[in-house]
Structure formats: C-alpha cells, structure tokens
C-alpha cells in the first residue's frame, strides 16, 4: 500500500484545516493580552502593533510546532520576546550603569516623610501619582528587569511561565523581578516627591 485511500487523505486534510482554524481562533482571542505586554516592552504604539503583527505572522506560519493543550499565551509571548530581542527594539532609555536601587519601603518612606505617616493610610495615595508617571517610570527600568516586571505584574504570568518565555532560570526571574520593582519605585519616588 503506497497511496493513501482518497477518502482517508480527504479526511486528513479536513482534520488539519479544522485544527488550524481552532489554533488561529485561540491565538486571536489572546491578542489583547499579547498587545498589552508588547506595548510596555517597546517605546511606541506603532512599534507594539508591528511587533504583535510579526508575532502572529510567525505564529500562524509555525502553528504545527505548538502543542495543543499547552499554554498558548506563553508560547505567543516567547515568539514575541524573541522577535523583540532580534530586532534590538527594546527601549534603551537608561544609562549603561544602573544605580543600586533602594530598598522596598523607599517610595512609601519618601511619601510619608513628605506628607506624614498618615498619608499612607489614605486610599488614594497611589493615585496621586499620574498614570503617565507610572508608565514613564516603567519605561525607564533597564530592559532585562522591565521584561520580567511586565510579564509578571502586567501580563499576569507566573514565575515559571516567565522563565520559559525568556529562557532563563526561575531564580533569575525572581531576582530580576525584585530588582525591577525596586527600580520602578525608586523612579516613582524621584517623580512623586520633588
């Protein structure tokens, strides 16, 4: 038996078309979440749009390499972060040497020393910082730290997912995440209290 039966072949083609359509549907349903991460990894909306389009183009071409039932959002983000690194598009606004970041209470202490300890009790204390200042502070963190903060704190990925996406050990995810968050607070402190 060399040639498959015609109806077997037709069935195989139909099954593949159905699997592919399902894959595409699922991938597209995640686009908003993929864009959300992309937008904070690059400097502009246009770049984020390009990056997401390139990611989907590559994902749709290589859909067969996705294992059904695994985390598709992480799979898409792995493509995206690799493309982003390849193009050297990560925002590079920070100086070469990162100053040693302050400790975790730094921002709260700054706000408390300016407005009194009770300022930390008020519900809107964080909202006194503009959303733009938060976004700017985020964009100023060193790329390798920002990547992890964006994946975990904005994209809701677990440490394990982030490790897989970036192809780094979990311990590295944790240390970069901790340092990235402290760097973010340090920048917010510089802007919030003048």
């Amino acid at each position, binding site marked *: 038996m060399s040639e498959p039966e015609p109806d077997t072949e037709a069935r195989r083609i139909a099954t593949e078309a159905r699997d592919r359509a399902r894959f595409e549907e699922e991938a597209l349903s995640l686009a908003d979440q993929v864009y959300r991460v992309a937008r904070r990894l690059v400097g502009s*909306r246009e770049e984020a749009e390009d990056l997401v389009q390139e990611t989907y183009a590559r994902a749709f*071409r290589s859909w067969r390499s996705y294992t059904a039932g695994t985390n598709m959002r992480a799979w898409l983000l792995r493509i995206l972060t690799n493309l982003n690194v390849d193009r050297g598009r990560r925002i590079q606004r920070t100086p070469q040497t990162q100053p040693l970041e302050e400790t975790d*209470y730094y921002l*709260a202490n700054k706000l408390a020393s300016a407005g009194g300890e009770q300022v930390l009790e008020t519900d809107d204390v*964080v909202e006194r910082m503009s959303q733009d200042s938060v976004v700017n502070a985020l964009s100023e963190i060193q790329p390798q730290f920002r990547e992890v903060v964006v994946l975990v704190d*904005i994209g809701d990925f677990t440490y394990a997912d982030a490790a897989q996406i970036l192809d780094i050990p979990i311990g590295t995810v944790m240390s970069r995440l901790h340092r990235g968050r402290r760097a973010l607070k340090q920048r917010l402190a510089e802007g919030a209290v003048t």
Partner: protein
Amino acid sequence: MSGDPCDRCEELLQDFLDRTLSDAEWREAETHLAGCDYCSRRYRFEASLRRYVKTSAIERMPPGLMAKLDELRGLDATA
C-alpha cells in the same frame, strides 16, 4: 545579631505579596505585621501600588489591529 525586625519585614514584602514565602517566613511576617503599624501601612501601600501600576500600564489594542491580525490567518509555512 538579630537585626531590625522592620528591616527583616521589608525583605519579606515582595514574596509575601507574591505568596512565595515558606510557611515559617509567612508566620514570621504575619506575627510582625500584627504588631507593627509602620510595616502594615507599607504592605498595604505596596499592594495598592501594584494594582495601580497594572491599571496604569494596561493599554487596549488599537482599533484596526485585530482586523490586520485576522488577515494573517492561513499564512503558508513556506512563505
């Protein structure tokens, strides 16, 4: 030398909110927080800050992008 308990609590802050502390560390933090307003205020602040950072950083997909992505369906692996 045992060190300042508030410094220790500060070290545990991120993992406490990420729920990645060991049971022993979790109890250590809880015990300290129960009796320390200074650290409790800072933990609450950190929790609201994280929510605020997330809300501020999330930007919806620009209109039109979805249609562009939809057009990519069916791309050939050899293309």
